[in-house]
């Protein structure tokens, strides 16, 4: 049961993480800081999943990455692009709609 739950959670997270990243990157952030930010909110993200996702979003022009070489250790900062914002708003609409449907159905079940 736990395994099955874990595998469904992974599937759900796959899409949700994209939305989270697009929301979070309204302010510039680098990978490790993003992992910490999610963790502080009680949401664990696999590090080795985040970077490939950022790369895919960057390729699609939804986020923009830029290396900061001013510090001792180079860090790649990401920020959402105008297309990314558009995508984020669309995803948020879908998210709200899904949330409404789910809440409505749970409410119906309680009254049944």
């Amino acid at each position, binding site marked *: 049961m736990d395994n099955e739950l874990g595998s469904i959670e992974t599937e759900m997270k796959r899409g949700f993480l994209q939305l989270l990243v697009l929301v979070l990157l309204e302010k510039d952030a680098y990978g*490790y800081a993003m992992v*910490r930010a999610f963790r502080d909110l009680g949401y664990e993200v696999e*590090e*080795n999943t985040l970077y*490939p996702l950022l*790369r895919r979003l960057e390729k699609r022009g939804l986020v923009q990455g830029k290396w900061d070489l001013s510090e001792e250790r*180079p*860090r*790649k900062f990401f920020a959402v692009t105008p297309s990314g914002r558009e995508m984020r708003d669309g995803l948020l609409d879908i998210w709200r709609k899904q949330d409404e449907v789910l809440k409505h159905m749970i409410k119906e079940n309680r009254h049944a």
Partner: protein
Amino acid sequence: MHKKLENYLEEISHFLSGREEREEILAEIRSHILEKAEQETGPAGEATLEKVIAAYGEPRRVAEKYLDGRPVIAPAFQRHLFRYASLLFAVHLVFILLAVIFKKSFIVFPFLFVPRMGVIGAVFYLPMAFLADFGVVALVLYFISRSGREIKLPWPKFALDLDEVKPADAKTVANKVAAMVGAGTMLALTGLAVNLFVKHRTIFFFTTNFGKFRPLFMPEPGRLISLALIATLAAGTIGLIVKAFSLSRRLACWVDAVVDSFALVMIAMVLRQQYTDFFAVRIPVSPAHQTWIYTTLTVTLLFIALMVAIDLVANVVRLGRRRPAK
């Protein structure tokens, strides 16, 4: 320079060969691991890095997350691979049998060339033919998948449907009992055969009035055929014993595949012998009829080999699946 980290990145790099952005991916991972090691566990020493690296994941799994993961053959066509390869192999097999029987080569331009061959040549040619057919079908399905077009491939039904072959249920009590009874019977048969062979150097006898038993074959072919049959019986016995005491379906498939392969080798060994005087018994028939008897025996052995080969392919198909069907 952190040796462990660089080794880890080197391994990831290996799995990302050919990708333009490889260096940048590695730079991202390096930066992340060093930062995490410093922030969470103190100065980035080798021991600290080792922990952070272990948490980041196996190099291959990390690299795979950057790959597109597009299947070589589209999921809709994956079931066609074995189906079409089996069909092509069936055609191939017919030409191989014709090449052996008529001692001629065949060309079906541009797909198939079957050279003239003997029985032993055919036994070695069959697996290569299957691999070639499998490769051709895989290549065609690959190109169809890559084209991205809406192509609907026909789905032919077989009398013997390899795709619906279910592995023997090794867990049922009935099957366990059957395997144990079978193993016991085979063990007794093998023991009897060995006993006969030790005493008489053959296990094949004939008698006309159940009085005196005489060897059926001449000493040399008689010894070879007896040994081949004893070895096949012994392999079958070991296989049944393993199946009787194992719960693994996959192991049962492996055992069957090994026993089938062994039986094929034994049949090939017998067919390879070119004896002119085979029987110890004088058969009162014309030379033409004697040739007919030898041909019938050869065809019978070939037929048995074909049945064993079909079972072998079915077992290979079962083993090729990611999980045995439940």
